[in-house]
């Protein structure tokens, strides 16, 4: 006898939605087959719960109350006038509204030589062989629930290529905007390939114009070519009602230099996943991020890094500030296979708890099979240091302001690694806004 688990409302919604939508989603028969396989996996196992190790601290089955319908096209006029999340960064903004790439709202003028930008939906409809190949993922990634749902429901996204040796001077900013009511869900996939010795700064912002329970699922697959330099920064800024799933898949080539930063500043339920792999020797990568939580928000950062080549160096630094009854999760796994000698990896996560009920869960994991490596990890969790606070107070600085200074200092170690000044400043501005709201 096979026991049939009770389906939650979210699972029921998913089961009803996929068969109804599968043929109207963009893509050839080959794409539908890939979608079917992905959805089949989710349907078979259901949404992951706390007994699934990867989701132990973020019980998606319990936390996802619904799975809203697919987003409509949205009101383009409202999207057009929305204030940009980052000012003054001279970025090339590419707008994805309600899961659809909007070239008419995007800046496509004077593309730098070697930079090409296409719609994923168009490529899927055309059955583009390169794009289809790029949809294939390692099993461990493909079977991840957030990834599988993205594969099943993706409506659009950007296919960005930077040719060998091309230096893209202006940052490329992927602006994700959800617009309209009632709540809807979106799934967007970007495929970004940066050729040998090329350079790119890729910014992602994810926001919503309405305070409703939108679900967003944004996935970026990034290929960092040999000797390439790529800087990736994501600002996740949705309202407290929203659910936000993001996934970054990065393959880092030989002698490449890659940095990624995630600012988890929004959504009631957020999970930022990174699946990264060193695919060639002598490469360097930095993985950093901050999380700021209040109320009953929950944010999860899950990093899986395969140090798959010799003499690669990585630095991981994640900092969380948690107030009220909020909860922050960090799970970081670094695997060093036997051949990856001279690996140098240092992973650190630190949480600052601002209330008695705040919670931080940290799970660092190192799996090391090579013998000539330097790998370290650390996790700290604590309240604001009373001695530091007293010193600031003793100079007349009011308590809330003193706490804000110390919180900003705590986060600064991670934020100050952001190379792009405009994004750095935009983020500091957001952090200060959060601190002001707390002080009010």
């Amino acid at each position, binding site marked *: 006898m096979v026991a049939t688990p009770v389906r939650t409302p979210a699972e029921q919604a998913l089961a009803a939605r996929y068969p109804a939508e599968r043929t109207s989603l963009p893509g050839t028969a080959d794409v539908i087959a890939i979608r079917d396989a992905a959805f089949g996996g989710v349907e078979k196992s259901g949404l992951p719960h706390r007994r699934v190790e990867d989701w132990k601290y973020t019980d998606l089955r319990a936390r996802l109350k619904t799975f809203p319908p697919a987003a409509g096209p949205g009101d383009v006029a409202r999207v057009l006038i929305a204030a940009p999340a980052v000012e003054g960064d001279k970025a090339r903004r590419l707008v994805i509204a309600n899961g659809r790439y909007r070239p008419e709202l995007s800046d496509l003028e004077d593309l730098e030589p070697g930079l090409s930008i296409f719609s994923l939906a168009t490529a899927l409809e055309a059955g583009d062989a390169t794009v289809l190949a790029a949809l294939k993922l390692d099993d461990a990634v493909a079977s991840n629930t957030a990834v599988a749902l993205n594969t099943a429901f993706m409506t659009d996204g950007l296919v960005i290529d930077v040719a060998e040796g091309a230096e893209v001077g202006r940052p490329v900013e992927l602006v994700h905007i959800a617009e309209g009511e009632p709540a809807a869900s979106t799934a967007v996939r970007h495929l970004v390939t940066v050729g040998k010795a090329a350079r790119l700064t890729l910014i992602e912002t994810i926001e919503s114009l309405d305070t409703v329970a939108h679900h967003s699922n944004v996935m970026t697959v990034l290929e960092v070519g040999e000797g390439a330099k790529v800087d990736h920064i994501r600002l996740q800024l949705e309202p407290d009602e929203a659910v936000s799933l993001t996934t970054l898949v990065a393959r880092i080539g030989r002698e490449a230099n890659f940095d990624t930063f995630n600012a988890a500043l929004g959504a009631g339920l957020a999970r930022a996943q990174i699946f990264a792999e060193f695919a060639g020797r002598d490469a360097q990568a930095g993985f950093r991020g901050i999380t700021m939580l209040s109320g009953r928000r929950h944010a999860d950062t899950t990093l899986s890094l395969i140090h798959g080549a010799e003499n690669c160096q990585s630095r991981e630094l994640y900092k969380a500030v948690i107030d009220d009854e909020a909860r922050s999760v960090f799970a970081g796994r670094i695997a060093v296979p036997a051949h990856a000698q001279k690996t140098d990896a240092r992973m650190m996560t630190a949480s600052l708890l601002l209330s008695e009920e705040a919670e931080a869960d940290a799970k660092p994991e190192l799996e090391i099979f090579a013998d000539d490596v330097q790998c370290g990890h650390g996790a700290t969790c604590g309240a604001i240091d*009373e*001695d*530091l606070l*007293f*010193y*600031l*107070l*003793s*100079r*007349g*600085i*009011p*308590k809330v*302001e*003193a706490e804000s*200074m*110390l919180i*900003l*200092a*705590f986060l*600064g*170690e991670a934020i100050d690694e952001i190379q792009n000044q405009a994004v750095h400043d935009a983020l500091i501005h957001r952090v200060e806004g959060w601190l002001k709201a707390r002080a009010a």
Partner: protein
Amino acid sequence: MLEIKNLHARIGDREILKGLTLTVKPGEVHAIMGPNGAGKSTLSYILAGKEDYEVTEGEVLLNGASILDLEPNERSVAGLFLAFQYPIEIPGVATMTFLKAALNAHRKAKGQDELTTPEFMKLVKGVAEKLNITSDMLKRPVNVGFSGGEKKRAEIMQMALLQPSICILDETDSGLDIDALKVVSEGVNALRAPDRAFVVITHYQRLLDHIVPDIVHVLSDGRIVRTGGPELALDLEKNGYAAYVADAAA
């Protein structure tokens, strides 16, 4: 200016101050000397409002008003300044940001407008120069990477900027070489004024050669056991605290 009346205080179950009484008038410099464990640093922390200590009896008045119910920042803007024995390093908080926040909190309390950045820079640079504080030091996070002497000079700089009415110097001489001691003492002496008083807490006579006190107290076992003029400090340097410790125990 500062009146401490029959002050009793404890940390945990241990009573540290056992009925301390002290009156400091405007313009005066008082020295408090005493052996290790007498309660000197406890006194300075209690005056500044550190939470770890519990005041069980007595009162502390600053310009006639009780300060024991005030938060540390309120005591600061009311005119009390503690120069720490061990100034705290605060990584990630820029010195200038810190000084500006402190200065503006004081100005706000006095109903004054915030200083503009050029005004603020000019003020800080003027004060820093007199204390041999380089612009490189001002660019660093608060006290981070400062030597012992630099930290003490930075404390005096803060004191000069905030213009308190009562300054508590907690073992400001500890960790200072002769040259640094001179710079720090000159900084303090420059701040002596008819409307400002100092309480200088120290183990040694040495500091009092440079900052000459009007009145010297001996603190032992949580009480002032002897009060005299500057000659008392010389006597202590020569004969030690043994006689007073015995007195207090008796």
